[in-house]
């Protein structure tokens, strides 16, 4: 295995484009090293992205969003007051990944590119409208985060392409987001179902909403029907019931060792209702 330490994304992309065997990018490594140890993946080339300037930085964008470097670990996201104030749902999703030790290494970009349908940070990013900057041999392009996963363990990135940053949009006024997952214990487990809600209020009324469902399909689902169920409402009981129904209808889960399709379908409705209430309260400034 060749271990590369490029100092620019252009160089990283060039190494990847020229690689002929199995290739992996290394950010936090909390998935890649496990796969290497298990023998699932034996890279011929491993490209460590952590020597590229800026990858460990969280910076304000000119329009008031946040640009997050691909090597920023969960523990740094959780300690960043401005980011937590703007996007608590995104941060709480990432902070659910693994243990304290894993949080010391694991990254948003890695969680995204690992391609797990149950990735805890992905619904929050999709609901927030996060954008991935993809650098490849022909330069950089920006795509919605939700377009990166292609299915379990697969991404839509082409040969030579690498995610070079993740950008969250400006929070703006009267907005709130939240992420909840179901696991049969309290910590150190993989989501059976996850749900992120991001919304904006005008007074008491919801005027914008984005709702993302995790672990109920091969890739994260951004459900327009679920969003429409609460837009224009004050999140009253009728709206919550319509939201749950829409989330259940959008889910296309499988049955596996973590839960049956029927269970997942029911739980996604429950989580959607609860996450919407938290996001609503956060938008009202009622809960930190």
């Amino acid at each position: 295995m060749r271990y590369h330490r490029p100092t620019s994304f252009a160089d990283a992309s060039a190494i990847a484009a020229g690689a002929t065997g199995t290739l992996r990018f290394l950010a936090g490594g909390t998935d890649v090293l496990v796969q290497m140890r298990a023998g699932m993946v034996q890279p011929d080339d491993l490209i460590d992205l952590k020597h590229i300037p800026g990858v460990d930085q969280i910076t304000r964008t000119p329009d008031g969003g946040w640009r997050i470097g691909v090597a920023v670990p969960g523990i740094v996201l959780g300690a960043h007051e401005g980011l937590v104030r703007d996007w608590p749902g995104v941060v709480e999703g990432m902070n659910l990944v693994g243990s304290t030790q894993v949080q010391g290494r694991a990254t948003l970009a890695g969680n995204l590119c690992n391609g797990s349908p149950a990735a805890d940070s992905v619904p929050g990013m999709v609901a927030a409208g996060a954008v991935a900057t993809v650098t490849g041999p022909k330069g950089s392009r920006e795509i919605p985060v939700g377009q990166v996963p292609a299915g379990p363990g697969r991404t839509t990135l082409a040969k030579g392409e690498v995610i070079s940053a993740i950008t969250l949009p400006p929070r703006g006024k009267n907005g709130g987001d939240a992420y909840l997952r179901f696991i049969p214990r309290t910590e150190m487990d993989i989501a059976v179902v996850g749900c992120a809600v991001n919304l904006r209020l005008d007074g008491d009324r919801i005027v914008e909403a984005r709702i993302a469902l995790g672990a109920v399909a091969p890739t994260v689902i951004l459900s327009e029907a679920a969003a429409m169920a609460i837009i224009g409402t004050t999140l009253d009981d009728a709206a919550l019931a319509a939201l749950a129904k829409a989330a259940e209808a959008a889910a296309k889960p499988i049955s596996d060792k973590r839960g049956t399709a029927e269970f997942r379908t029911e739980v996604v409705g429950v989580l959607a209702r609860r996450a919407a209430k938290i996001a609503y309260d956060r938008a009202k400034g009622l809960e930190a």
Partner: protein
Amino acid sequence: MSKIHVTTTVNGDRMEFLAEPRETLLDALRNHLDLTGTKEGCGTGDCGACSVTVDGTLVCSCLMLAAEANGKRVETIEGMAGADLHPLQRKFIEHAALQCGFCTPGILVAAKALLERNPDPTDTEVRYWLAGNLCRCTGYDKIIRAVQDAAAEMRQDHRGAA
């Protein structure tokens, strides 16, 4: 396959070794530097027995390549005691917070990292912080009690010093 020259600081001492590209920090600590206090439990980041800090951040040394430690400051269980045992080490003995002891180095390193960030944690905060450190002997209660007793003593000492 060419080896990678790694220079790192371990428990305050500058160390150099040659690592295979695939070699983990855990294997380098144990096999090149003879620091066998750091244990391999699962090798997949689930059990925390290999916990160390790297530039002050708690990590699983099995989930990091040795080459990634180049230029970093690594702290292991061997660096915990000075002339006397660290309060956490003493309290683990007093409270019998271990039986077989295999998980203990990782739990001590993790608990020390917690108390540096949060000198007065609740039991719940201790339990969540240590959720990635598995102990198959004690049932955890004695571990939580030992950490809280050590934290109380360290707060007392800190006030005494101030």
